[in-house]
């Protein structure tokens, strides 16, 4: 094993190259297109689309708060997923305590989800 | 939540998938228009034409204005002049906006002399609006093109009656009157 102060993750080099290649692929298409595509701009073309009407007001307007709980719930369950994954990989080395604690963890989270569903957080229609 | 077996086994979803799969192996109904042509039904109503009298070579229209009155989209405009002595109307111009026409066929039905007709010709288009506003000249031209397509002396269609055609060549009357019997009296409905 390599000493940690000399460790360089070389097998991730290909992922990095893939990111760069993907970025260059998109950018290259845009740059290549910029040589051939036409440019006839006028005001009507640059106005945001609103089914033919003149746009009314700013597009950035207050939206329903119902979307925000989804973001919070997603964060909660993502942390949960992050904790499940090492558990699944190290499954065969777990003692019964290690096994049961995750079952308990999942049940507590399920309890939280059931609470939210009972309270109608995710119901789109107001009760 | 329903817990019936049909719901749990996604029966309705699978049925839908099978229907589309069955259609996948069917012959497509598409007609690739410029390459193949559609069979036009005999009652099809297409481009307008003004019937020309074969003997005199003049349009048959007598400027009675029935068509322009009956037209639901009001696309017919007729200009005429009245002969002072005889009181006879003479057609000066007949303008028909095909862009506004709804192809209802009232004009040809109401015409007492069978002058304005809707032909079976559907392949017509124009580069600008003026191309599809027919005046008398264009309407007569349409009729001539239409007649040229047929090798018969006269074109006849069982859905409209051309004046001057021998009676025996005409098809049977279009609408049979509904016979209603009321206490032995025959009434045509």
């Amino acid at each position, binding site marked *: 094993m390599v000493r940690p102060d000399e460790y360089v993750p070389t097998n991730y080099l290909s992922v990095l190259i893939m990111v760069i290649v993907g970025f260059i692929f998109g950018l290259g298409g845009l740059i290549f297109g910029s040589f051939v595509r036409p440019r006839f701009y006028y005001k009507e073309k640059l106005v945001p689309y609103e089914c033919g009407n003149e746009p009314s007001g700013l597009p950035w307007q207050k939206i329903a708060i119902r979307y925000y709980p989804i973001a919070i719930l997603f964060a909660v369950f*993502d942390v*949960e997923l992050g904790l499940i994954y090492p558990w699944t990989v190290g499954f065969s080395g777990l003692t019964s305590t290690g096994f049961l604690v995750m079952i308990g963890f999942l049940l507590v989270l399920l309890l*939280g989800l059931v609470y939210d569903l009972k309270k109608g957080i995710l119901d789109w229609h107001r009760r | 939540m329903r817990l019936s077996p049909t719901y749990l086994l996604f029966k309705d979803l699978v049925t839908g998938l099978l229907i589309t799969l069955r259609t996948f192996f069917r012959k497509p109904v598409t007609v690739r228009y410029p390459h193949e042509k559609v069979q036009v039904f005999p009652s099809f109503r297409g481009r307008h034409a003004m019937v020309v009298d074969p003997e005199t070579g003049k349009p048959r229209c007598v400027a009675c204005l029935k068509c322009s009155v009956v037209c639901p989209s009001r696309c017919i405009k007729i200009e005429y002049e009245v002969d002072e002595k005889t009181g006879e109307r003479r057609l000066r111009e007949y303008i028909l906006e095909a862009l506004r026409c709804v192809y209802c066929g009232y004009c040809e039905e109401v015409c007492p002399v069978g002058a304005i007709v809707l032909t079976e010709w559907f392949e017509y288009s124009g580069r600008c609006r003026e191309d599809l506003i027919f005046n008398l000249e264009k309407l007569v031209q349409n009729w001539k093109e239409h007649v040229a397509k047929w090798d018969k002396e006269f074109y006849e269609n069982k859905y409209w009656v051309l004046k001057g055609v021998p009676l025996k060549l005409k098809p049977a009357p279009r609408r049979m009157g509904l016979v209603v019997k009321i206490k032995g009296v025959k009434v045509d409905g």
Partner: protein
Amino acid sequence: MARPLFMSIFLLLFLALFLLLFRQKKVVYQFLVYLVMMVLLGIVYLFLGSEFLMAFQIIVYAGAILVMFLFFLYLYPEEEFKIQDMRNSTLIKTLIPSLLFVITLILILFTFDVREYEASASVYSVKELAKLIYNQYPLAIFLLAFILTYPMIAIYLLMKGSESDD
């Protein structure tokens, strides 16, 4: 040989991103810089030898918690998310937190005692990590479960509050 080079690059990048972060006028751009920093932090974890921590960092911090921030952009119209212009404030004020962060990072990266490596070798494999966490600290996991239910209850209170406003 290659590693101090990479680490120096990361440090410089963090410093530059911190300066960039405080000199943005709009919240969106601040947010974008912050996103880049989060991903970069994941790559630093990778260089420290923990692949799983990188994935966790990107999935949870860059992927989930920052999305929560981003939803705020949707919740507020433009007039409200334009923040105070910080470019006129003194540079030193903005430098203090960034320098604090970078110094902490230097302490972590360059004062690593190689003799401790044998003791901490287990953390480098996810399997060993799982054994360590779940067998020896079950109470902490259970506590975390209860902590994670707090936001779920908080959502209800939030929704209730917003509905009574209308």
